[in-house]
């Protein structure tokens, strides 16, 4: 019941967002839908992250993502990542059994499309498969949108939903971050976010929330994101580093 109300709230928020953007758009906002993106753009994102909590869950993952624009509103995405789960279980764990004495390693291959309906908004829909200690399929949806983009303090809303067919677990991540300040070399963001997960080996809805800190180092095109907080697994912390390359074609 509660999740249905939450889903309605998310749909209402997305509808409001689309309505406000559409009212600001020209009469035929997608008249160039059947043209190639100009310029075509290829981006490569390298990423690495580490997650840990007091209930002794420890995991790292790293990899790269390639995205190529097709038309101005759609891109194709491919992602390859490696996961290491050292002990315990958490929101990004697709394993069917709790890890034993050795770290569990698996690779994840995903592909899909990225919808770019407005400036600063994207919705990527991905599907793929795990290979290694986890070998089931998985699907993922990534939504990110900037509100008040042309202001001193733009706000970023992001939602990520995953489902792991290997163990039947689903997870959702939500973050709200505000640009606090932007300088020549650095932009920093502050906000709050957390994770919800359940299903499969986890009979209850688990959750954890905490404050977010984001740092974007412009010269190196590198972001460092930190989150620490508290939830069903007690205290937790995450850190990630992403590095972006981009080429106009």
């Amino acid at each position, binding site marked *: 019941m509660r999740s249905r109300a939450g889903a309605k709230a998310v749909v209402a928020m997305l509808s409001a967002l689309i309505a406000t953007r559409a009212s600001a758009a*020209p009469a035929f*906002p997608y008249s*160039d839908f059947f043209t190639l993106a*100009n*310029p075509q753009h290829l981006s490569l994102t390298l*990423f690495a*992250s580490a*997650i840990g909590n007091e209930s002794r869950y420890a995991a790292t993952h790293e990899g790269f993502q390639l995205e190529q624009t097709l038309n*101005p509103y759609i891109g194709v995405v491919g992602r390859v990542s490696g996961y290491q789960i050292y002990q315990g279980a958490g929101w990004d764990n697709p394993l069917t059994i709790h890890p034993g004495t050795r770290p569990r390693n698996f690779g994840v291959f995903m592909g899909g499309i990225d919808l770019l309906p407005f*400036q*600063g908004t*994207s919705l990527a829909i991905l599907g793929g498969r795990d290979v290694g200690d986890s070998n089931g399929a998985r699907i993922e949806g*990534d939504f*990110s949108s*900037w509100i008040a*983009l*042309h*202001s*001193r303090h*733009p706000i*970023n809303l*992001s939602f*990520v939903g995953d489902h792991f067919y290997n163990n039947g677990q689903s997870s959702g*991540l939500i*973050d709200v*971050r505000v*640009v606090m*300040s*932007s*300088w*020549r070399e650095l*932009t920093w*963001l502050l906000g709050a*976010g957390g994770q919800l997960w359940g299903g499969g080996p986890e009979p209850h809805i688990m959750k954890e929330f905490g404050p*977010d800190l*984001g740092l*974007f180092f*412009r010269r190196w*095109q590198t*972001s*460092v*994101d930190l*989150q620490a907080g508290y939830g069903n697994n007690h205290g937790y912390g*995450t*850190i*990630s*580093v*992403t590095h*972006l390359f*981009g080429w106009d074609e």
Partner: protein
Amino acid sequence: MKLSQRQFRHPSIRLGAIALFGLILIAHCAAAFAQDTVGQVTAVTGSAKLERGGVEVNAAPTMPIKVRDELRTAADSKLTVTFRDGSKLILSDSSSYTIDEYSIAATSRIRASIALWAGHLRATVFVAIGAVPDFQVHTPNATTAVRGTEFEIAYITGRPCPEDRSCTRYTTVGVLHGVVAVANIANPAQTIQVTEGYETTIACESPATSPAPLGMEEMGAPGYH
């Protein structure tokens, strides 16, 4: 009262006259040089051209730069010009600009006006302590007046503007240090101030957008997603 021939022949008077004449000549030359050569090419990567009086030559380091020179870069090229007041313009690939005005007295800039015709230009403007800079960069649809020292400006044609996809000629201005006043050339009174770490876009005849943080297109959801 006239100096007699005898008095003029006096060595000290003659020396004084020569010194005075020399000073006048140097001052004239300096003024002429100041009006003429305003800087020089200090770095070239790839291929860059300098057009002066309808004659085009390859730009090379130490080549003097004068007012009304047009500078152009080819693909994968970059050109740096350092002016006599210490200001610097770095022209990125497939770009061009003209020096419409660059008034220098001794080594202090009085007034500068640059026209960016295409591509991307990074300006580092020397500002003397206590001075009010008068350094302007124009594109075909925007005008910027520099109140600070370092900024980037690009004029892009043939591509949809991210702010208004129906517009295919637009200017972006990003400020790395100081403040830059930006306006659409069609409405120069509607000026916005862009501060360090922010950027604005001027699409076709639209006014400059409210400043947004630099590099927003590279930022999104946190990476641990």
